[in-house]
């Protein structure tokens, strides 16, 4: 009994310390701000859920359902990125090494982290639940607030989904390959597919076992209440849509049968299972288990062994240093640019370059313009994890004091980083650009060049201001997916869509790049002055 009490006490303190550490961070305040905005958007009617051309009466059930869907979709994506750093932080701050030397078990540690993740996400859910109550009072279409109908979807739909997100975030952190930028990008695609699968099943009148977000639970119930024929049933959730719905109908909420409740709660069991898997995979901060580049480059050598491999020292007197003939620094932009480019590409394997070469050849050889555009989108997604380190490397590798105390860090090093990023874009997209050049499509070439400027500028700006690769990885993936990959003309910052050169879209992204470059310089100035 006392052992169980001890475990619960440790779990409580682990989760509490982690939770407090995170809620006092800027990123948490930012996400809470977005949650509050979403709540406000819902309350003021900017965020609307429709079935066909109609919507439900703003009663407790409808508002609870609407807010639950917002939570399940928005928080399962943004929330993941907010919480996916809990183990990494212990690793970076080296608190992990201290924790690893205590008797605490891996399972207890991982469970504490999952619980802390869940509490952070739940805090955001609470904000949206309160917004729901305000929304009902605001609209006053159905003045009686039925707390169960309003909060039931939060409890049974959102919280199990958040438990799953909390566990997946920890699982990603315990798998070496998913710990960093690749994991951030991969989650976006996993999330998209995982969210779409039950939606597609629901649209085809099939139930999906994989409805972790609980979307189809609400949709199928609303579909029945709207009494629309199956072929006319379409559902949308939109933000900023001020057009009024054609008609309203009454929806009294999901009928919570024991089977349905059990199905929803089973996702908590899945989350627990994932947490146990994470505990199994967790390396307990053992540096020898880290699959890092350093381990690859020095296979069997631990740092101690490396030091011991050095020849014995014979003298405590160092050999003399020749004074520099000319101490004046000579500005060699080419040298610093090459150094930055080398730093950027260092550690890439041969197959990385092979894929780049493949994209260059494919872009140059593909006859179809839309096919080439799609290939350019892929070619410019391939270096995402390299670009995402721009402006971040100095903070991440703790070299900022060395770099910032060198002469002209803003006039020399920052432009070199930026140009190295642009160079990478020009190289990876050269198949597309070369073809435009060859065919004399100058306006198209200009649009492509603007794309090559825009991407590294975005990376540098977000990197300098956030101090982390994560923000660029998320924003760029989202932009890339919604824009070039779906051929959305307004969001085609790459200039990849056929005919984009005759629109004002490239000019817009050029202006954006210029503005972001100024913001990046301001950010670096701020770093230098703190």
């Amino acid at each position, binding site marked *: 009994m006392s052992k169980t009490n001890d475990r619960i006490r440790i779990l409580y303190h682990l989760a509490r310390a982690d939770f407090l550490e995170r809620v006092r961070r800027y990123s948490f305040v930012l996400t809470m701000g977005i949650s509050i905005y979403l709540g406000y958007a819902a309350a003021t009617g900017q965020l609307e859920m429709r079935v066909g051309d109609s919507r439900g009466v703003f009663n407790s059930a409808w508002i609870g359902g609407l807010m639950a869907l917002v939570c399940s979709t928005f928080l399962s994506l943004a929330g993941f990125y907010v919480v996916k750093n809990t183990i990494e932080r212990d690793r970076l701050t080296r608190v992990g090494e201290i924790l690893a030397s205590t008797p605490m078990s891996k399972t207890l540690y991982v469970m504490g982290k999952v619980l802390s993740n869940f509490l952070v996400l739940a805090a955001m859910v609470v904000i949206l639940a309160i917004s729901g109550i305000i929304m009902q009072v605001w609209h006053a279409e159905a003045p009686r607030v039925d707390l169960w109908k309003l909060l039931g979807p939060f409890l049974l739909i959102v919280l199990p989904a958040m438990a799953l997100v909390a566990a997946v975030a920890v699982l990603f952190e315990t798998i070496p390959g998913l710990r960093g930028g690749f994991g951030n990008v991969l989650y976006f695609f996993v999330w998209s597919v995982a969210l779409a699968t039950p939606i597609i099943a629901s649209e085809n009148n099939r139930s999906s076992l994989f409805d972790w977000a609980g979307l189809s639970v609400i949709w199928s119930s609303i579909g029945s209440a709207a009494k629309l024929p199956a072929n006319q049933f379409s559902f949308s959730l939109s933000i900023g849509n001020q057009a009024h719905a054609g008609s309203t109908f009454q929806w009294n909420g999901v009928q919570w049968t024991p089977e349905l409740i059990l199905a929803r709660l089973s996702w908590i069991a899945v989350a627990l299972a994932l947490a146990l898997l994470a505990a199994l995979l967790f390396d307990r901060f053992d540096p020898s288990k880290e699959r*890092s*580049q*350093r381990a690859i*480059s*020095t296979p069997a*050598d631990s*740092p*101690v062994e*490396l*030091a011991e*491999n*050095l*020849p014995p*020292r014979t*003298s*405590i*007197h*160092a*050999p*003399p*240093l*020749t*004074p*520099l*003939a*000319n*101490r*004046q*620094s*000579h*500005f*060699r932009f080419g*040298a*610093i640019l*090459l*150094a930055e480019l*080398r*730093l950027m590409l*260092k*550690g890439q394997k041969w197959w990385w370059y092979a894929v780049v070469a493949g994209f260059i050849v494919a872009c140059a050889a593909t006859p179809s313009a839309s096919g080439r555009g799609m290939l350019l989108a892929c070619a410019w997604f391939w270096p995402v994890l390299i670009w995402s380190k721009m402006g971040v*490397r100095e903070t991440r*590798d*703790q*070299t*900022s*004091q*060395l*770099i*910032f*105390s*060198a*002469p*002209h860090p803003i006039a*020399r*090093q920052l432009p070199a980083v930026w140009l190295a990023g642009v160079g990478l874009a020009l190289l990876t997209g050269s198949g597309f650009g070369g073809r435009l050049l060859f065919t004399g499509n100058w306006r198209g070439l200009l649009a492509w060049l603007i794309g090559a400027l825009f991407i590294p500028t975005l990376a540098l700006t977000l990197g300098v201001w956030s101090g982390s690769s994560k923000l660029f990885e998320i924003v760029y993936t989202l932009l890339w997916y919604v824009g070039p990959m779906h051929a959305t003309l307004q969001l085609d910052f790459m200039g990849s869509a056929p005919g984009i050169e005759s629109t004002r879209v490239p000019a817009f992204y050029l202006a954006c790049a210029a503005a972001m470059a100024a913001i990046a310089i301001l950010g670096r100035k701020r770093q*230098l*002055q*703190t």
Partner: protein
Amino acid sequence: MKLAIDGVSKQYAKKLWGLRDLRLELGPGVVGLLGPNGAGKSTLMRIIATVTRATEGRVLWNDHDIARSPDTLRAVLGYLPQDFGVYPHLTAIEFLEYMAAVKGLDARSARQRIDELLAVVNLAEARDRSLGGFSGGMKQRVGIAQALLNDPEVLIVDEPTAGLDPEERARFRNLLSELSGERIVIFSTHIVSDIEAIATDIAILSGGRLLAHGAPEDLLRAVEGKVWELVIPSAEMSAAKQQFLISTSVRRTDGVHVRIVAAENPGARAVPATPTLEDAYLHCISNQRTSAPQ
């Protein structure tokens, strides 16, 4: 060659000052910055290294305010911070080449200088190994090498011997001593023995304020006649610690040999001793603590 610190203060929060009204004038030689943890040594070094700005006051390099024109100093500056990182995927030589480019060294000078520096810091054999596989002491030596890349006129080294083994510490002290001729070396530490052999000047900081500044001889003179050696039984050690400022204590067969820093003779059996810099430092810090308002 003159570095003047003119009334520098650094405020971190409303009532939290890292430095208060610090005034120092430094010329060629090694100045040792001594002080307990949190004394403001690193803050002062970051300000001089142009990494952070003073809240009040100025730092003048050859009469140029470094807050207004930081690059006048940066061009001739070598800086080894207390906590710094390296790019783990680069080899030692690649990292130094990168830093040489950032510092604006021409390619030929850089190559020769890097070769020499790698030999100086005893890393010539490890030059082509990834920094990610280096031990803490080896990384520290890479840090020392990068600080010396541009043959700096002002060399700032913050706790440079942390993580070095005794042999490397001695080697580094000798190197600094050889380098100190026509340059200003600012060396921060809380290990007095690290600087007593090489410092031409010592500044003692505590609580963000400058307690003393002068040649080691001046500091030693201040504690002349105030250091005593005494042998006491082990059982009396605890009481002695309460009563006196004990500089060192060594257990021997006849009891505990203690060095006491006190203005008055601490007891009949006490004999006067030749003061060391450690005694002078402790005297200075303890004077400040007793005179500080409670």
